[in-house]
């Protein structure tokens, strides 16, 4: 069998991830009331909604950074975790093996070079040969235009460059699902484009992605499906043109209006 090409998403069709009745509270604050989501292989889902609507929490539950109070998170081919039942910690953490997260604040490791950041997961966790991991990392870096930065430390990079490294670090894990948590929110406006361009390319290559974003124009362009959340529930979801241009629900309409005409 040929080794997986790190530049390409794993080929597959049909539903990759099924989320059923996901619930999460922080103390008395109910953040997710009951979330259902289905994500197909190769699909790009944009998660939009006002701040505090729970979109980031959904993402974090999928990556095992938060433990839901109830609900089922099931990947095709496993793991499938029912958080309503008694969940072994190990089982919950195995969700992480299928996805990789790109953070709003990049969260690169400042004490490592760009290359070390990228190969850390493949080498330390996945136990892949270092040589192979380095070769993959270099190809991925070249692809996002940062080949010459491989030996720099993150502090020498602009925000846009750091976020591109963040994306490469996620890709290097060869995940089935890429999770983006407001990937451009911490960036200066003139640096947003370079990061969105990379995400768009990934979408064209049919990576499966869930993107939490406030960039509605971008969502309309790259997403196959837009999910609008408010108050811990999915208010409406569907094709980007439908949800963002002809919303059925009043709450969606108000949100879109506010983002389009902020003043």
């Amino acid at each position: 069998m040929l080794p997986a090409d790190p530049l390409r998403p794993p080929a597959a069709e049909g539903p990759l991830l099924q989320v059923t009745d996901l619930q999460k509270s922080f103390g008395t604050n109910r953040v997710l009331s009951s979330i259902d989501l289905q994500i197909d292989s190769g699909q790009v889902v944009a998660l939009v909604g006002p701040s505090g609507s729970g979109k980031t929490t959904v993402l974090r539950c999928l990556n095992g950074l938060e433990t839901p109070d109830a609900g089922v998170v099931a990947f095709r081919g496993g793991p499938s975790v029912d958080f309503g039942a008694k969940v072994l910690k190990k089982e919950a953490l195995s969700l992480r093996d299928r996805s990789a997260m790109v953070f709003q604040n990049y969260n690169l490791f400042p004490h490592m070079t760009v290359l070390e950041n990228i190969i850390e997961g493949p080498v330390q966790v996945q136990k892949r040969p270092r040589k192979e991991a380095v070769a993959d990392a270099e190809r991925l870096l070249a692809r996002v235009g940062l080949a010459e930065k491989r030996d720099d430390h993150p502090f020498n990079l602009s925000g846009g460059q750091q976020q591109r490294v963040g994306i490469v670090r996620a890709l290097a894990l060869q995940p089935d699902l890429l999770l983006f948590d407001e990937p451009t929110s911490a960036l200066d406006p003139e640096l947003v484009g370079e990061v969105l361009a990379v995400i768009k390319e990934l979408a064209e290559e049919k990576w499966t992605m869930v993107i939490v974003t406030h960039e509605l124009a971008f969502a309309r362009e790259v997403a196959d499906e837009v999910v609008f959340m408010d108050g811990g529930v999915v208010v409406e979801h569907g094709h980007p043109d439908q949800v963002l241009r002809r919303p059925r629900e009043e709450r969606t309409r108000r949100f879109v209006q506010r983002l389009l005409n902020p003043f």
Partner: protein
Amino acid sequence: MDWELLRTSFWPLLSGGLTGTIPLSLASFAIGLALALVVALMRISGQPVLSGIARFYVSVIRGTPLLVQLFVIFYGLPSIGLTIDPWPSAVIAFSLNVAGYAAEILRAAILSVPKGQWEAGHTIGMSRTLTLRRVILPQAARVSVPPLSNTFISLVKDTSLASLILVTELFREAEQIAAFSQQFMLVYLEAAAIYWVFCLVLSSGQSVLEKRLDRYVAR
């Protein structure tokens, strides 16, 4: 000024430093630091029993004089049937003492690393232990070098207390030479100068280490 005494006493004092003070300091610091890491991790473990034990330990160590700790181990323990030689007694007392102080330094240093770093480690599949080792501790190390250097330099000087349980080190040599020659001022000042030089060397070592760990930080 008795130059002859200054000259003849120099080598015994220096060798007391090199064979007593320095190895005692290094051994106690190494063991103390390892213990401090355990105590710091217990403290931030979030488990009430473990963190309670750690808190109690730090409180006792910081709330009692080092000299008392030393005497309890060397003079106190034999009365419950546990006799320990001077050297190991000193190492035990100093290690336990260093651990109490260094634990708080390490705890603060670990907590100073942003939470996002833990999450980044977890998202690439690392366990808590691996994240701690590969991501958190290297960054905490940088933060903790200056305060740990302080602890180490204090320790070097505190080892003079070991003379009171008959460990041969720099200060015990000085006491003996001073008593014999009756030149207290001269001999003790000479001993002080040697301690000072030791500490100067350590301080420059600290700067080198800080520079080294600083390479990845924007300035």
